[in-house]
């Protein structure tokens, strides 16, 4: 079970990572899942496809993203800290990797439209972006509460030609946007691909999205090797659904590197969750004693999700991955520290990982360790919110 070779390869044929994963969707969607799985496997094994995917990420997406040595912070913490700069990717986060892959696949499947869910709007903007590039139609489902909180991102998607549909059911946030996207997908599977935004949902999504994000880890491992670090002692990433974490972990799964995922304390599926079934997957979920899904509460919209991707549940259960949680107040501080010390304003999601490193240097992270932080996104989307919070504190 702890043979590193067994981690982060393909799931079993029904999409299981150990006890997690699988495919829990209405019968009407099963054919679409099969079709997608077949199309993905076929495309992913076709060099022409993967070449195009890599080319688009290079020419359009801004890859490879650099590794930045965080020199001043390293000195302060007594570790050697590096950042993988997904904040420099087009649209400002790792989300572009996945949507470039999925929109190319959409075209290859002969579909002319994508739908997507979004929380804060990062995945929605990324999807609208990749769709615009290919001339695909795009509809994005977004909780009504989020459309109000993130009105500018709604406008951004509209500028990119997408239609944004406010979701008025349930808590009117990300979780409900996923439900609604699934409902809509049922009605239009013929010509529409559901471009899911993280390593969650029914098979093949968790696997496919991880594969499309693994470019982060593959690049990072190579870049660190060039710096003489092979492998680093630890890789740290924030975890909402878990796509940026899965992507970076994938480059180090079969090494001695400790893989550390940081959840929001108010959305901690590993820390506070239990096995369950939601959004097409079996995974760890925050739920009450009768299996009703609980709402997550986090300062960062991208981690405001009561579940976690099934492969992370498996990594957690098997011990290959370690998962910790960070509360809202530490997050604001971490954002400030990284900005002040290194000139990089991280996304609030990313700031969770930063906060954990600040907290654990010299404790969970032995002094002198080499640590790779996956800097999943930039904080521009968050500065207005952070400003309000800091004002309220004063």
């Amino acid at each position, binding site marked *: 079970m702890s043979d590193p070779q067994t981690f982060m390869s393909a799931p079993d044929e*029904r999409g299981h990572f150990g006890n997690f994963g*699988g*495919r*829990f*969707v*209405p*019968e*009407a*969607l*099963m*054919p*679409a899942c099969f079709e997608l799985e077949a199309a993905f496997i076929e495309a992913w094994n076709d060099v022409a496809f993967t070449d195009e995917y890599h080319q688009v990420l290079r020419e359009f997406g801004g890859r490879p993203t650099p590794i930045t040595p965080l020199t001043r912070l390293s000195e302060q913490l007594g570790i050697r800290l590096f950042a993988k700069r997904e904040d420099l990717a087009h649209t400002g986060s790792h989300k572009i990797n996945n949507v470039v892959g999925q929109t190319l696949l959409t075209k290859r499947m002969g579909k002319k439209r994508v739908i997507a869910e979004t929380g804060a709007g990062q995945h929605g903007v990324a999807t609208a972006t990749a769709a615009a590039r290919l001339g695909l139609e795009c509809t994005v489902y977004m909780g009504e509460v989020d459309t109000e909180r993130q009105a500018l991102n709604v406008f951004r998607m509209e500028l990119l030609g997408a239609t944004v549909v406010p979701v008025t*059911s*349930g808590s009117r946030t990300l*979780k*409900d946007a996923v*439900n609604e996207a*699934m*409902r809509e997908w*049922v*009605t*239009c*599977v013929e010509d529409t691909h559901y471009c899911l935004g993280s390593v969650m949902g029914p098979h093949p999504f968790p696997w496919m999205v991880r594969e499309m994000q693994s470019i982060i880890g593959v690049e990072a491992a190579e870049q660190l090797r060039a710096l003489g670090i092979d492998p680093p002692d630890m890789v740290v990433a924030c975890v909402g659904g878990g796509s940026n974490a899965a992507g970076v972990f994938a480059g180090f799964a079969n090494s001695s590197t400790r893989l550390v995922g940081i959840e929001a304390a108010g959305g901690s599926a590993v820390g506070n969750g*239990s*096995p*369950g*079934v*939601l*959004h*097409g997957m*079996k995974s760890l*979920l925050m*739920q009450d*004693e*009768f*299996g*009703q*899904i609980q709402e997550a509460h986090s300062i960062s919209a991208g981690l405001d999700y009561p579940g976690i991707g099934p492969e992370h549940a498996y990594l957690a259960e098997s011990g290959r991955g370690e998962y910790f949680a960070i509360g809202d107040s530490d997050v604001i501080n971490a954002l400030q520290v990284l900005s002040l010390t290194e000139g990089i304003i991280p996304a609030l999601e990313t700031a969770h990982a930063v906060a954990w490193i600040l907290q654990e240097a010299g404790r969970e992270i032995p002094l002198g360790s080499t640590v790779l932080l996956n800097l999943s996104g930039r904080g521009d989307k968050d500065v207005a919110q952070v400003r309000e919070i800091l004002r309220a504190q004063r």
Partner: protein
Amino acid sequence: MKSLETYLRALRSTGRKALVPYFVAGVTPDWTQHVEAAVHAGADAIEIGIPFSDPMMDGVVIQEAAYQALEAGTTFDTLCAELATLSTSVPLIAMTYYNIFHHYGLERSTGQLQASGISGAIVPDLPFEEASDWMKASSEHDVSNIFLVAPSTPPDRMGKLASLTEGFCYASARMAVTGRSSDHGDGGRVVEGIRKFSDIPTYIGIGISTPEQARDAASVSDGVIVGSALVQIILNGGGANDVENFVSSFRRAID
């Protein structure tokens, strides 16, 4: 053969089309009286929706009802306790999402269903590939495991579902979640497909909202399931009388 299927096959053999109204458990304090009214008006079986926080397969009407039921404190335990007070002659069939049973425990869930007089279960987000544990547990408690077949289901898969489903086979009239559309959809085509593989009773559901649609659907199948249109009446404040009138009108249409 589990008892539900025996019952429904016998029903069909009388030439009667089955009418299966759907209720959301706990949506109002008097919801069990609605169930009784439906039976009184000629329902042949009752689908009991166990509310779930994230009803992925349901449209706005049932979502809203489930939300109200949860807000009112409905749990699997409370609704089972209420069902135990119900004296009705027709089969009860649970409809909910897999997480409810998975979290409660499969063995414990099916035991409780049986103890509450529920003889079947529809779990729309549990495809047969993932259902073996559930099927094992439900077999031990005479709970029939009812699968849906969708218009998109390819023939080979249809055969598999037709052979696995128990009690009846749920033919989805359209590619949509509950409560949408107004025509009678692809139900007939789906039923035709199922019948190539099995003679199990086959009911059409999803989007049947008028007596006329029900008549059309019943004419090409063994019965109909009526959900959102009925739940809407209850959300509008309708009482047992309204339920009885509504169900009666469907009864007359399909007889």
